C-alpha cells in the first residue's frame, strides 16, 4: 500500500509540474491568443472588450490560479478558437485517438513480440535476419513520409483503401458494413503509426528472450521433456514480460506524438490534430487542457506500468506492501 501511495503522489506531482511548465511556455508565445491583435477590423476598445470576455486581461499568476482551481473541479475552460468548452473538444477528439493509437499500440506490441520471440528462438532464421537488418531501417522512416507514400500507393495508385477520415460520409446501412467501413479507414493510419513502434519492441523482446533462453531453467525444462515451443512461448515470454511493460509505458508519449503527424496526414479528427491547430491558433486553454489530458494519461499509464511490474516481479514490491 505504501508503494502505491508513493507512486501516486509522484504521479500527481509530475502532472502539476507539466501544467506549470506548459503554462509558462504558453505565456511566452508572442502576441495574442486567437489573433485578437491581428484583426485590423477590431478597434482598440473592441479588442479590450474581447480580451476581457475571454479573461485575458487578468495577470498571468491570477489566470494560472484560476485555471488550476477550475481544473480540479474538472472544468478546463473554454477554447478560444472553437468557442466551446475545452472538455467537450477533447472528449470528441479522444475517441478517434484512442482508436488510432490504441490499435497501433496493440499492433506494434503484438508484431514486435512475435518477431522478437521468433528471432530469439531460431537464431539465423528469417525473423532474426529481419530484426538485424530491416528493423533499423523501419526505425529511420519518418512517419509523415511513410503516411504520404502509403496514401500515394494504396489510395491513389491501387485505390484499395480510403485516404483518410474516420468513416465514409454516408454510413452504410448494416452494422457489418459499418464495421468494415470503419476498419478500412483504420488500416492505413494504424499501420503507419504502428510500424515505427514495432522496432523497439521487437529488438527488446529479442535480446530479453536470448538472455532468458540461455538460463539454466530452460535447459532443465527441455531436458525434462517440455516441448521447446511451450518453453519459448509460455515461460520465456512471461519472464521477458516485465521490461516490455516498462517499455510500453515509456513509449506512450512517443505514440501520441507520432499520432500528431499521422492525424494531420490522414485528416483524422483526434487529439493530435487538436494540439496542432490549437498551437497554431494560440488557443492557450485548449493546449493546456490537451496537455493535461495527454500527460494525465501518460502518468496514469506509467503508474499502471509500475504496478503491473510490481505484480509481475514481486521483488519490486516493498516488504509488507501489497500492490494489486
Amino acid at each position, binding site marked *: 500500500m505504501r508503494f502505491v501511495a508513493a507512486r501516486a503522489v509522484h504521479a500527481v506531482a509530475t502532472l502539476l509540474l507539466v501544467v506549470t511548465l506548459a503554462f509558462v511556455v504558453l505565456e511566452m508565445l508572442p502576441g495574442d491568443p486567437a489573433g485578437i491583435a491581428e484583426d485590423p*477590423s477590431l478597434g*482598440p476598445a473592441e479588442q479590450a472588450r474581447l480580451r476581457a470576455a475571454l479573461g485575458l486581461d487578468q495577470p498571468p499568476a491570477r489566470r494560472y490560479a484560476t485555471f488550476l482551481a477550475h481544473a480540479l473541479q474538472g472544468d478546463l475552460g473554454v477554447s478560444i478558437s*472553437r468557442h466551446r*468548452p475545452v472538455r467537450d*473538444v477533447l472528449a*470528441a*477528439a479522444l475517441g478517434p485517438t484512442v482508436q488510432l493509437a490504441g490499435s497501433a499500440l496493440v499492433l506494434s506490441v503484438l508484431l514486435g513480440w512475435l518477431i522478437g520471440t521468433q528471432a530469439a528462438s531460431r537464431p539465423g532464421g528469417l525473423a532474426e535476419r529481419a530484426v538485424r537488418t530491416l528493423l533499423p531501417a523501419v526505425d529511420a522512416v519518418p512517419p509523415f513520409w511513410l503516411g504520404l507514400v502509403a496514401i500515394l500507393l494504396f489510395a*491513389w495508385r491501387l*485505390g484499395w483503401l480510403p485516404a483518410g477520415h474516420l468513416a465514409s460520409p454516408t454510413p452504410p446501412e448494416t452494422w457489418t458494413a459499418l464495421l468494415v467501413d470503419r476498419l478500412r479507414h483504420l488500416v492505413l493510419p494504424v499501420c503507419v503509426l504502428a510500424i515505427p513502434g514495432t522496432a523497439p519492441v521487437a529488438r527488446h523482446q529479442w535480446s530479453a528472450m536470448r538472455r532468458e533462453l540461455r538460463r539454466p531453467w530452460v535447459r532443465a525444462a527441455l531436458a525434462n521433456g517440455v516441448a521447446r515451443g511451450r518453453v519459448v512461448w509460455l515461460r520465456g515470454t512471461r519472464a521477458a514480460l516485465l521490461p516490455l511493460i516498462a517499455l510500453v509505458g515509456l513509449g506512450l508519449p512517443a505514440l501520441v506524438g507520432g499520432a500528431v503527424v499521422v492525424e494531420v496526414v490522414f485528416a483524422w*479528427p483526434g487529439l493530435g490534430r487538436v494540439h496542432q491547430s490549437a498551437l497554431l491558433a494560440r488557443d492557450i486553454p485548449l493546449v493546456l487542457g490537451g496537455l493535461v489530458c495527454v500527460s494525465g494519461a501518460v502518468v496514469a499509464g506509467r503508474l499502471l506500468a509500475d504496478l503491473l511490474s510490481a505484480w509481475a516481479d514481486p521483488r519490486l514490491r516493498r516488504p509488507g506492501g501489497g500492490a494489486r
Partner: protein
Amino acid sequence: MHGDDPRARTVRRRRTRPGDRTIRFRGAAPLFVVLLLALVPGCGSRSGTAPSDEQAPGRGGTLVVAVRVAPDAANPYVARTHASLELANRTLPRLFAEILPATEDGRVELRPELVVDWTVDPDRRRVELTLRDDARWSDGQPVTCADLAFTLAAQKDPDLAWAGAEYKQAIESVECPEPHRAVYRFSRPTPYTLMDVNDIHVLPRSIADVPRAEWRRTDWAARLPAAGPFRIAAWRDGAEVVLERNDAYWGAPELPRIDRIVLRAVPETTTLLTQLLAGEVQFASGLDPASARRLEREPAIAVLRRPGWNYVYLGWNTIDPEAYRAWRRGREAACRRAGQDACPDPPAEIARLAREHPHPLFGDARVRRAITLGIDRRQLVDAHLLGAASVPPSPILAPLPEHDPALEPWPYDPDRARRELQEAGWLDRDGDGWLERDGRVARFTVYVHAGNRLRRDVALSIKRQLADLGLDMRIEPVESAAFYARLFGRQMDAWIARWRVSARVDMTELFGEAACGTGGANFGCFVDDEAATLAAQARETTDAERRHALWHAWERRFREQQPYTLLFRADLFAAARREVHGIETSQANDALAGVESWWLASQATASGR
C-alpha cells in the same frame, strides 16, 4: 450595382411573388442586375468541358465537400474562419446575397433572398424593406422583422464585439410596422446604405435568452434554428459538419435538390487530391495553382477558376523610424505621467511625423515608384503562382465601376527605376553595388509571415530583382502574431501582406490620415493631400458618374504615389467531380453559392467505392 448606384435615388420595386427569382422593374433604369442561375457567357475559365447540364436535374444524394480548415462556429457573429461564413450562407437567411463578380464584365450585385421589395429614401436616411412571408425557422417560427431588430441589437452590442459593428453604427433604429415590413433609420447617410443594412446574416430572436457575453462559448450547432436551404444535422468539432435539407426552407420541396452536404476538413493536399480522384470527395475549394493544374488533366474533374477578391502588396513605412522612436519615447513618458495604461498613437501626430520626418527611402514617392518599376511582378506570378494571378494597377479591383479599366499597372522597367532613384539622390558612389545617399546605404528589411510560404518565396525573388537596382533588401520572416505586433508598433520598414476587398470602396480606411493612428489600417501612414481630397469628395458624392470619375482620378494619383507596390491578385481554384451539376461560376466570394440548385448525376461515388 455600383454603376447604377442604388444609394442615390429612391428605388421602388413592385412586389414580387415569393419564390419568383426575377424582379420586374418599374421606372426606366434597372437598378439591380439580377443574374439568373445560368452560366454567364465568357465567365471564369473552366478547364475541359463543363459538366453538361442537358439532363433534367436529379434529386437526392450526398455532396461531400473538402475544406482546408473546418468551420469554427455555426454562428457567423463569433466565427473567425471563412468556412464558417460559407456554412452560415447555407443555414441562415440573408436579406440579400452580396455577390462579387467572377468575370471581367460582371457587376457587384445584391441578390434578394429574404427581401421581396425595398425602398431607399433620397436622403439615404431611411430604408424600407418588405420581407417574404413564407420564410420560417426550422423550429416553426416565421422569420419576421422582429428577427431583424434582434439581429441589429446583437450586431451593435459591445459585449459581442463583432468585427463588422462599425458598419452598423450609422443605423439608428429598426422599426417593425408590420411583421414582414421593416424600416431602418440612419443617423447619417452612408455611401453604401443597402449593404450596411444587409450585412450579414439574420439571427432568430428565439436565441435572445443566451446572454451576448456567453455567445463565444455557446454550442450554436445545437442551439441555432435554420431558415436557409440546409440545417446542421451533426457537428464534429474541427473535423466534419453534416448539413441536411431544411424542410422549412421557402424553396422547399423543390430546393435544395441535394439531401445532404458533408463538409470535411482535409489539411493535407495529397490526401485531398487523392480523395477527390477516388470520389470520396466531390467538391473542394481553396486549391493551390499547382494542384489545380494537376487536376485539369483528370477527365473526372472540372476545375473552376475565379479571380480572388484580395491582393498581396508590399507596404512601406513612410515615417523615419528614428524620428518615430524618439517621438514615441516622449509620448510614453507623457502617458506614464498622466497615469494612462493605454497609450495609443493619435492619428494627427503620426501624420505630422510622416510629413515632417519622411522615411529616407520610402518617404519619397520616386523611390516607391522605382521599386514598383524594378519588380517584375508578371514574372513573380509566373514563377510562384504558375501564372494564375493578375497584376492590379490599383487597390480598387476590376470590374468595380470605381476602377478605371483603362488604367495600366506600371511596367517592369529597371532602367526607368534607376533613373527615378538617381533623381531622388540615390547613387552608388563607392562602387560596392549598393546605392547611397547622405552616407546612408539603401538597405531595408521586409517582414513576412513565417507561416506563409508563398509570400516568403516571393520576397526572395523580389530581393534578387531589387539587388539589380542597387537596393539591399533583407527578409525577416516572423510569426504572425509578432508580425502584427511589429506592424501596429511601426517597427517595420516594409512588409508583405494581403487585404481582402469588400464591395464598399472607401480608401480612407487604408490611406486616410485618420487611419494613421493606433487601430487604423494606414500602417505606413501614407499622407497625400491630393489623394485624401479626392477620396473624401468621392465618399460624399451621390451621383454615380461623378463619383466614379473621382475614384478614377484617385487611382491615377495612387499610381503616381505608389503608397503600396501591388504585387498580385491571385485567382481562386475550386474543383468538382463531373457528377456535380448546376454549379454557378459567376460568383467569386462564395464557393458554394447556389448549392441548393446543384444536383448529382449518379450516386455511385457518394459513399466511396
